[in-house]
């Protein structure tokens, strides 16, 4: 296959950046999208041009490192698939493909296709955990968890933290990510003790970095793990409840 790539090149956060067009020949339909970028990079190095920087690691769709906008779609055209699992057989021979980094204020650009997603870590810091010091746990079978609850929690926990939801959102909102991380814990019996403080802190932290959700639903379509926006509804409900519950608890304490 022969592919024409329009790739966003930007040396650093303060550089203006521009699209550069590259012709890539010798592409096999069996290649993954990232292997096609490898092919381009090998050639660029041989020709004396700096290779295109992009984040990637496991190439199995689970680490969440990779992710670029492909023709305006986060992770490209195949539903439920991260960039590293997208294969060139999904494109036509002779196609022109536009490749850009995630575009969101919450993810400042680092270089070329690489962005800084540390804001996600800050959301987890703000209560995206269950407080249980090592060694203090009771026997695992002491708390039965209904299979449906465990399955539902898992559906949320499948989030790989890639940021496609934010990149796909017209508002640059991180509601799907935050909701997935929060719901995973809020759905489980183990997560109840901190449920309301978690809801409030995680949402408040999210809002420091990201835009607001206006229910476009683009995030669900872009999510490589097909995480449902129902979790956003649950997060919103929990946030509202938290406002009342936390206030009442505060009243009891003082």
């Amino acid at each position: 296959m022969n592919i024409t790539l329009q790739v966003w090149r930007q040396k650093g956060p303060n550089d203006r950046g521009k699209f550069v067009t590259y012709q890539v020949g010798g592409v096999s339909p069996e290649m993954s999208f990232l292997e096609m970028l490898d092919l381009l990079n090998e050639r660029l190095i041989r020709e004396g041009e700096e290779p295109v920087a992009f984040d990637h690691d496991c190439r199995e769709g689970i680490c969440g490192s990779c992710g670029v906008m492909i023709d305006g779609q986060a992770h490209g055209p195949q539903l439920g698939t991260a960039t590293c699992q997208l294969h060139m057989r999904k494109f036509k021979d002779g196609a022109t493909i536009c490749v850009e980094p995630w575009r969101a204020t919450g993810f400042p650009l680092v270089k070329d296709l690489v962005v800084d997603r540390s804001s996600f870590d800050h959301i987890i810091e703000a209560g995206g955990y269950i407080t249980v010091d090592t060694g203090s746990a009771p026997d695992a079978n002491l708390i039965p968890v209904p299979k449906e609850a465990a399955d539902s929690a898992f559906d949320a926990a499948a989030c790989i933290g890639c940021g496609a939801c934010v990149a796909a959102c017209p508002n640059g909102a991180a509601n799907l990510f935050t909701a997935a991380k929060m719901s995973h814990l809020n759905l489980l019996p183990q997560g109840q003790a901190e449920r309301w403080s978690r809801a409030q802190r995680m949402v408040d932290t999210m809002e420091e970095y990201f835009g607001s959700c206006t229910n476009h639903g683009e995030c669900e379509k872009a999510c490589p793990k097909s995480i449902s926006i129902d979790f956003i509804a649950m997060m919103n409900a929990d946030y509202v409840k938290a406002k009342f519950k936390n206030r009442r608890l505060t009243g009891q304490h003082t």
Partner: protein
Amino acid sequence: MAFALDAKVPAGPIDEKWENHKFSVKLVNPANKRKFKILIVGTGLAGASAAATLGELGYDVEVFTFHDSPRRAHSIAAQGGINAAKNYRNDGDSIYRLFYDTVKGGDYRSREANVYRLADVSLNIIDQATAQGVPFAREYGGLLDNRSFGGAQVSRTFYARGQTGQQLLLGAYQALMRQVDLGKVKLHTRSEMLDVVLKDGRAVGIVVRNLITGAITRHTGHAVVLATGGYSNVYYLSTNAMASNVTAVWRAHRKGAGFANPCFTQIHPTCIPASDEFQSKLTLMSESLRNDGRIWVPKKADDKRAANEIPEEDRDYYLERIYPAFGNLVPRDVASRAAKRMVDSGKGVGPLENGVFLDFKHAIERDGQQAIEDRYGNLFEMYERITDENPYKVPMRIYPAPHYTMGGLWVDYNLMTTVPGLYSIGEANFSDHGANRLGASALMQGLADGYFVLPYTIGDYLSDYLNTDPVPTDDPAFDETVQNVEDDVKRFLDVQGSRTVDWFHKELGKIMLDQCGMSRDEAGLEKALSDIPALHEEYRSDVRVLGSADTLNQSLEKAQRVDDFFELAQVMCRDALNRRESAGGHFREEYQSEEGEAMRDDENFANVSVWEWTGDAANPELTVEELEFENVALTTRSYK
């Protein structure tokens, strides 16, 4: 100068050693813990769990990862499960049985006391992870489900669909982020450790390169913990993530940490076969698939028919035929070699005839497609995405690929390396899996080391340094190390050669896979030992790395990692050559039975080979730790 190896295995009966040891090690009182700074490199299961736990205990912890977030570490890709001797299935499991299976599975090349402790704390790991909210699979009654795995005749594997590693890592990561939130742990992302700093023979700090700015920084601590994973990427094509590397471990080795059993590498039997030259990595299909999938090849060589057109009588379910007792669930090394023999005899399947079938037809007929989908849905989807074939309709094609390295830094019972104050945990050390690791035991070991072993044992060392300040970062020991690191970074940019880093890495990988892969022999290893230094020399004089050292430069990062792989590869081959027996993942052609099974030499090789850096990768020095088996009798491993 040979090492004076003291494994510090506690006295007493096997089931009391750890209990006694915990009582006899020196403790640091809670108010004093904050006076100790511990540097942890790596945030996979081992590193994240250790950082979280040490933070909870009150130590002053700094943790480093080259990823953009701790959650990206490659533990996240582990699929199948985690073992624990809970005996929830009432099928006769016990701590002793898990211990026994692991020692036997490791082909009697691991340290009994360490393995027993691993089996012992496996129970606590499941409790801990469940309390953190790890969504393990459950029965309808709400209790935890189990599945069986290779090398065991009981069901002791806990799992979270096909994403157990992801869920366990997120649990450890969340515990870590809680400590970051509390200010107990300082997190450094996109920070790669490039050397350990020693003073008076002790590890007192590390030198780190910021991958975004290129800044080289100095970090001082009372102890350094390496949790940086394995070195399968020495083969170029492996199931490891692209950035997985040996650099942190190797630089520690060059500073005096002994490297144990480097030739013990695991080739995982169920991976998707390579499809062409451009392949950048191989993808694992969880071993759990062997619970329901049946492995076969056509009975006659060069059978060009499609899988579904080959009738039952023309199929050879070779694992079930050769190993009736364990069938498709034989340990990984046995399954891998059997697959290789089939492909080598011309019975390989697929366009490149480089695989064997893993067939779910019978399982689907027996349990229905829905049941199979519930168990392996995401794995089947992944397979289809990669190969464009539907495994519900046609059998999967699989072939072995480098996956895990049992070898690593030598550690004593306290998980300390031969360098005082330098610890190694998880896959980065050598201690628990002998010559072959059983499935679902890597997650167990990473978390055992991080949650339940290191946090106890590290106090024993630290307590001697109470009220001593960490070595200041302007100490000459730091100056010298920083100078070396800076020179090293610059060296690759100065070469301006003609070939890319990946080109050399691929060539190295081919040599290693051919000569030091699934089977090895003297002539091949000798050849590798002459080819690798030659290629390494070419690498250092002809590699082309563009760009500069003061921005994100992924080629430059990789150039250094590949340079370390070149040195490691030589020590691996040296070790493989020296170990004149077949054991677990180390199969020497010269030492096999008439039926092609591995033949150990317990008289001469029931030991750990520990290699010492001498300044020249071609001439490392060997010291041996003899292994003593007081509980498990050394027998020929039989899975028939």
